[in-house]
């Protein structure tokens, strides 16, 4: 009976994907509420200032923006790809100068009612530009010049975002770009070389961070970035030649730094199979999960704590539906441009989901990146919904109407 409903030829939009999307937004609403309405101050705030209401507002704005994106044929969008790309690169440059500083990073434009995070939109512009650039015939894509040019297209926003610094957001550009290149038909050996090169560089980088003897040249990282990596690999903060007092101090520092990860893990772990029930999780209520992060980057641990393994699987299933319907859209796209756009969006969403959930269960180091559609945040919600609009756009215009 589902075949009729699911059959894409019956409808202009991918209903299955829309259903999963709505499911995620409902979850987001419920758990942003659960994560924030824990203090008296939050409960007594006027309704329009309550974070979950704001989240709904951003959902609505995002859905509006996605609809607009759907209405414009993606070929029209692609014509503006380079303009959008350079515009976003300009914004990334401006944010380094005029942006406001929070948690030691310059990532936001403070617009009063809303902090705009340009990197969220730069990712989309990059997908559009990369897809547009590589949508040329496959023979051309095989040439090394195009390969290096597309690498350049990827590196430019990467460097700007790194500079903010926002390692997480910068890193997701790489799998996204690589996926688009792969789907576009870039020869495998290039990609293998590239992958190998990146891998070796990353390995050298880690070895340098973790094991470099004192006095050696080390890659300059922000302290917090270095510490996050050390926390992830369970290495000592203290240099090898540190005095015992320093080592104790470093251990103490390490304990505080690994606090968030530990608390997130405790939240997820204590959820068990079925969880403690909605709004019953005490990790947020007691403030062990930092109030600033619970509804943001750590929203998944709130869901996992309150709904358990079953809840986590539901979330993963919803993402899975979106990702695979996305790939299906890529398969049905009318042309290479549509296919590459769809692949880019899927790769971007997947990177976010994997890194974010992975950091909640400590299989990837902590990097401050949001969980698409669930985490609170105007830029993230807007960006994610626009990305979904792009997918649907490719679907809608799969046939030349």
């Amino acid at each position: 009976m589902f075949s009729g409903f699911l059959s894409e030829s019956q409808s202009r939009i991918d209903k299955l994907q829309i259903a999963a999307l709505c499911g995620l937004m409902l979850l987001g609403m419920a758990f942003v509420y659960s994560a924030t309405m824990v203090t008296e101050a939050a409960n007594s705030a006027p309704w329009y200032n309550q974070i979950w209401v704001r989240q709904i507002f951003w959902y609505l704005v995002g859905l509006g923006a996605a609809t607009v994106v759907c209405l414009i044929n993606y070929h029209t969008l692609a014509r503006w790809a380079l303009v959008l790309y350079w515009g976003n690169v300009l914004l990334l440059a401006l944010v380094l100068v005029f942006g406001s500083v929070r948690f030691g990073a310059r990532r936001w434009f403070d617009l009063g009612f809303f902090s705009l995070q340009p990197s969220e939109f730069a990712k989309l512009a990059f997908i559009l530009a990369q897809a547009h650039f590589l949508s040329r015939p496959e023979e051309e894509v095989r040439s090394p010049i195009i390969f290096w040019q597309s690498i350049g297209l990827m590196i430019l926003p990467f460097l700007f975002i790194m500079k903010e610094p926002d390692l997480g957001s910068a890193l997701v550009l790489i799998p996204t770009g690589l996926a688009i290149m792969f789907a576009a038909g870039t020869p495998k050996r290039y990609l293998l070389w590239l992958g190998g090169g990146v891998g070796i560089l990353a390995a050298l980088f880690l070895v340098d961070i973790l094991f470099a003897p004192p006095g050696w040249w080390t890659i300059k990282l922000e302290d917090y970035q270095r510490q996050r990596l050390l926390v992830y690999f369970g290495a000592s903060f203290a240099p090898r030649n540190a005095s015992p007092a320093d080592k104790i101090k470093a251990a103490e520092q390490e304990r505080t730094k690994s606090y968030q990860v530990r608390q997130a893990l405790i939240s997820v772990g204590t959820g068990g199979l079925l969880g403690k029930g909605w709004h019953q999780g005490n990790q947020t209520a007691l403030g062990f999960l930092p109030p600033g992060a619970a509804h943001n980057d750590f929203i998944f641990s709130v869901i996992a704590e309150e709904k358990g393994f079953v809840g986590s699987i539901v979330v993963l299933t919803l993402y899975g539906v979106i990702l695979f319907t996305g790939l299906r859209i890529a398969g049905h796209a009318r042309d290479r441009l549509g296919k590459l756009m769809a692949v880019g969006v899927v790769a971007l969403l997947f990177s976010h989901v994997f890194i974010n959930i992975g950091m909640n269960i400590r299989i990837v180091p902590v990097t401050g990146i949001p969980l698409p559609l669930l985490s609170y945040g105007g830029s993230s919600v807007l960006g994610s919904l626009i990305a979904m609009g792009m997918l649907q756009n490719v679907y809608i215009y799969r046939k030349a109407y």
Partner: protein
Amino acid sequence: MLIFDQLKKNDPQLRILAVLLLCGLFVLVAGLWWVQIVSSRDYQAHLDMQSFRTVRIPAVRGKILDRNGVALAENHPTYNVNLYLDELRKPFEDACSKEISRARAILKQQAEEKQRQLKRKLNKEERKQFTLSLRDRGALKQKARFDVASNVVAEISRRLGQPFSLDPINFQKHYEQSLALPLPIATNLTSRQIAVFSEQCTEQVGVDLSVQSTRFYPFGTTAGHLLGHLQKDDSSAEGEDAYFSYRLTDYRGVLGIEAGYDKELRGKAGVKSVVVNNLGYRQTENIWEAAQPGQNIVLTIDREVQRKAETALQVYGPVTRGACVVMDVQTGDILVMASSPTVNPNDSIQGYSDAEIERLRDPKLRPEINRATQDNYAPGSIFKTITGLACLEAGLDPNAMIYNPGYYQFSNKRSKPVKDLAAPGQYDFKKALMKSSNTYFIENGLKVGIEAIIRLGQRLHLGERIGLPTRQEAPGIFPNERTLRAGWYDGDTANICIGQGKMAVTPLQMAVMISAIANGGKVLWPRLVDRIETIDPTSTAPPVIFEKGRVRDNLGVRQRSLQIVREAMLADVEEGGTGSKAFIEGLDIGGKTGTAQVMDAHNRTIADTVWFASFAPYERPRWAVIVMIETDVNAGSGGSTCAPIAKKIYQALLDRERGTTNHVERVAQAH
């Protein structure tokens, strides 16, 4: 699956991407399964450790009652004012941020000053001097918190009209170590302060009254030794959880009944769990396990008589050193057990004054000793009752006369003669006991031999502990076969015959001895505790009742011999003997006085121990009354010092008897 079917038609790249996606999702599922299902219990343990604190709540201690149900040790509520830091969290935060922003403003001003001086912008290194370090911030916060708390304390002090102070070091210590618990700022409020507080201070944030159950001995020094005292001790008793985050003040009995029945009195401590937030502030709390109150101990002591006996005992005022014991000769019940100088068990709770500590340390007074059971004394002439019994059993004719020249001369002429305070003349048994003739008892005692006396002493279990629950017991000293073998002379036997030399007893042992003479030869176990009662009214467990009149041994002498001794003791009081000062109209008392010399290492007399051992009524004996006083040499005697005390005690017993019967009649009429 639909999606894959459709992908198959398409290019291989998409298929590879789909496989990668699937792998990624699978990794996440596997990770989540590991964390949420496999290691869930470990994380739960982590969570409990960081967000729960357990508090040990001591149980309410059982009461100690006298035989009529009068509480000798009970608990009364004391009221404390507590500071609840979790309620002050908001003011703390406000004060902290104010303090920090003020410090920042000052630093900023200083930085600008410096810039003007240098006429240039400060570089990064220089700017560092003008920023707050983490340590500075910590110190500022600490100060801000203390200011808030001490303001609250000052406000409470003003309202209650008593200056309470808050020590910054203590406050910080409490903040760091026991944040989840309230901080007491004022203890033991007066009733007026309680009223003022409940009227005026309830709207004050962060403070509240708390009630604490405090041990209280309503009659102060009465039976102080017997009750014993407590010591602060919050460790876990057997069968309790060993680990608690916090423990509330609790006490443990270390002496007397409080120690002997500590387990029963103490009850079972409860557990309270406090949920704390990430900073350690209290969030909610609930009782996991309620404390089970301790049981009541009902003593055989009669509070009224005990009090009168204690007053009577202090013939030399509070520095009197002595003891008295009243025992029911049929049941073994100890009605009175008094020792002087007295101690006040309330001091163990409320604290000892310097003067009191000084007094307790006095090597001569030794107030902490329970003289009724805890020290050895030579019984002196009161032991002649037993020497007499041994002689009578060996066939002594009580009417046979012996001449007393005023001393006793051993057959071995080199030995020093023993002085006899009884006037020279002819003595039969009755007169010898009445006048306490040393010559008579030494001469007859040497005839029957030490073994006969030792046999009786062993049946009385002299030289052995009774096993009192009070942990205040000396065994006394008494010769046995082994001591005899080690070298024994007639002089030693002579000394034993008159209750001196190589023997020592406690007043309680003498009470047992006199009871045995009075009740026809039964050597009883003294009985201090009548029963253990459960406080819980819903409990169906029957109270533990200790058996009355348990016989430990039997003297194994003829009733006729006992009768002769009793007659002689009656004569001692009623026919102008040494104990005549105990005489009471309407109560026939049989008594025996005693004066024992306390010798130092050079055989010089340094003090006397004077005794009066008695029983009454003569016809149907009920009570044995033993009085013992330590005096200076020749400062007193059993007859002049102790017999009047015994008289007062008998008077008290008679009053009590009448009072109780009157009371019973009144109750009967009322019904």
